[in-house]
């Protein structure tokens, strides 16, 4: 409500009553209660803290983060940055954080795709499809995630050994050592092409913005897709060609007792990823379904009456409205997936929890170890919610 419509009498502040030192004064009571609660909690914290200090002294545990610069000596199978057991604890923990981020990012992307498919399938007019999706959602959501993770890990371990590995397609091997996929020998040209692709996307975005501004100005729609194709696909390909177009496959092959070459998806990572993705997808499916159902039928009909094509109706009318309902609960599902990735410790994938846990067992630095775990997750949680809140605010319905 704008200020002009407010009765001027109500704009004046209520008269300030003097603070009476009496129990019947609400403000006095409030202050007393707050002082009591804060004093109580403060004394409990002080008590716990003094106990801790005493216990640490008795057990001769030095506090502080000095241990981070000591040699870790713990082997880590999967690392995105170079790592050696002789490196420091700090580096080991960084590897752990990166492993957590790796599974969280891949998991969020895959869970969103799978969840959207299942959510839409649940709304299908086809009886079988909607019932399969409903059955999936019901079962997945009623089983503990840890049980599912252990199940997938057991299934992974039950796969045959490298010599009898399943070989569904040429170059792909599935065994109890994990999934082996062919890859290409990475050369600077590929990095350059990747960069060119990013540049292309940015340029396309700028171009689309400009095109839209021009359309607003003169009403003429402009085709964006030819420029998009040229920038996003053409530019990287051109860069790659100019730099010599290297293309050498790196095919996995069985040598001795294990596979050489290709990329490896470890069984731990695969089990964690499958578990997290299938579990979270069950929840995302419900969010997507609720979002689509929230758009009233009249919106579809009105859009069709305007003569819009099906794709345009979906893109311009339905999705923006459904997204408003979908985004906030989707955010909490992303947060849950990230936090749930901490269960990796149960199946031996070395994420931050697993590595911090080993660290605190080796060094005895329990407080620091757990503080690191909590700090990492708080940072990740806050970043995701900040980003999603920003996105949510962008797409939210602007009302008066």
């Amino acid at each position, binding site marked *: 409500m704008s200020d002009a419509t407010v009765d001027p009498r109500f704009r004046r502040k209520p008269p300030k009553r003097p603070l009476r030192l009496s129990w019947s004064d609400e403000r006095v009571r*409030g202050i007393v*209660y*707050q002082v009591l*609660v*804060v004093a109580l*909690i403060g004394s409990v914290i002080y008590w*716990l803290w003094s*106990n*801790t200090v*005493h*216990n*640490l002294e*008795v057990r001769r545990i030095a506090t502080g983060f000095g241990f981070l610069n000591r040699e870790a000596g713990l082997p880590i199978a999967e690392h995105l940055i170079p790592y050696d057991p002789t490196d420091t604890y700090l580096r080991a923990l960084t590897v752990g954080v990166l492993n957590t981020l790796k599974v969280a990012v891949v998991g969020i992307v895959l869970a969103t795709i799978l969840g959207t498919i299942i959510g839409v399938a649940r709304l299908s*007019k*086809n*009886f*079988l*499809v909607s019932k*399969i999706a409903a059955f999936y959602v*019901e*079962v997945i*959501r*009623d*089983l*503990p*995630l*840890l*049980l599912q993770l*252990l*199940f997938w890990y*057991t*299934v992974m*371990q*039950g796969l045959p050994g490298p010599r009898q590995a399943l070989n569904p397609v040429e170059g792909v091997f599935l065994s109890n050592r994990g999934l082996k996929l062919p890859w290409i020998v990475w050369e600077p040209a590929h990095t350059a092409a990747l960069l060119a692709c990013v540049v292309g996307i940015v340029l396309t975005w700028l171009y689309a913005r400009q095109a839209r501004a021009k359309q607003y100005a003169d009403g003429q729609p402009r085709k964006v897709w030819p420029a998009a194709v040229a920038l996003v696909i053409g530019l990287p390909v051109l860069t790659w060609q100019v730099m010599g177009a290297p293309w050498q496959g790196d095919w996995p092959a069985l040598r001795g007792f294990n596979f050489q070459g290709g990329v490896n998806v470890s069984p731990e990572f695969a089990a964690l990823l499958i578990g997290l993705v299938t579990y979270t997808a069950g929840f995302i499916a419900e969010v997507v379904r609720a979002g689509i159902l929230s758009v009233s039928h009249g919106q579809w009909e009105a859009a069709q009456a305007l003569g819009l094509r099906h794709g345009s109706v979906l893109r311009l009318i339905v999705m923006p409205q459904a997204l408003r309902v979908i985004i906030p609960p989707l955010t909490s599902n992303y947060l849950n997936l990230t*936090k*749930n990735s*901490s*269960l990796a*410790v*149960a199946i031996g994938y070395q994420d931050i*929890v697993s590595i911090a*846990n080993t660290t*605190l067992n080796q060094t005895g630095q*329990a*407080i620091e*170890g*757990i503080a690191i*775990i*909590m700090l990492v*997750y*708080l940072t990740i*949680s*806050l970043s995701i919610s900040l980003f999603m809140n920003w996105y949510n605010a962008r797409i939210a319905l602007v009302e008066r």
Partner: protein
Amino acid sequence: MSDITANTPAIPEQRARSAPLTAVGPIAWMRANLFSGWLSTAVTLVCGYLIIRAVMGFVDWAFINAIWSVPIGPNGIAQTQACRDLHGTGACWAVVTEKHRFMLFGTYPYEQHWRPALVCILFVALYIVSAMRRFWNWTLIPIWIGTLTAIGVLMWGGVLGLPYVPQERWGGLPITLILATFGLAFAFPLSILVALGRRSNLPAIKVLCVVYVELIRGVPLISLLFMASVMFPLFLPEGMNIDKLLRAQIAIILFAGAYLAEVVRAGLQSLPKGQYEAADAMGLSYWQKTTFIILPQALRTVIPPLVNTFIGFFKDTSLVLIIGIFDLLTAGKTAIVEPAWQGFGVEVYVFVGLIYLVFCFAMSKYSAGLEADLNKHRRR
């Protein structure tokens, strides 16, 4: 309208026609729901094929090719060669037949197993009674206190001629039910206080509640469990020690309290301001207003999300596996550590999963029914 009908030739008298067969009945239903177009038909055929394959494969594995029991060797070790010879084409339910007592009750003394079994029955009875709306009044409080006391007596023993069983030997399903039920019983009142605190006008109390909720919700449960198992002993004065199960229980209460508090807060927020103002106008004190006017209405609106939170929280008790507490899932995982049973994890997890599924599915159906019931007044 009348002009047109007047000019059209009269329709010759006809017998009333029966409804076309293609509009009602099973065939019409199939046409509408399974074969409404070429795409739909193709999808139906593919899905139908996949379902039949999957169901037949499962039946083959779980029933036809399955082995239900194996001979026990002279040294007390099961002879699982027959199971291994199946090479995964059939389930080895023998591991469940052989180990189900261990999975359900852990290392509780074997001849005393009737006690944890009775405890599980008491818990289920308690849930059923609490779910009946007839008992949604003050009688529920003595029922809960009485049942929980009986459960404590049964588990520990030491009185009424029952031999004493130390807490270290408890395990399996009773642990899962104890963690979930006691967690809930303490987390719920805590969550109400925190939710009220978060809505309070007193800044210090509000800040404390916000920090508590956000801190707990921002970190994974297992970091709290680690805290309970590793850091808690450091917090307490020397010589004073509380056992692992209680520490995990405290962590679970704190965790559930934060999540439930948000649900309750949503309920408090959904109440129209007029309710607060009317209560104030009546001259009620804060606690009178809260207990008689606000909470009954707020809690009623959030019963379905509360039940959903309970489900999530029942499942999350399985995380105590990570700090080595012997709940249902830990017992299942331990059962397959024995060399004879190694490699039959899938069967064990299916069995344990079924137990969780029964509890959670019952709760989720109940929640859906309740939601429909409570929203009757909103339906037109």
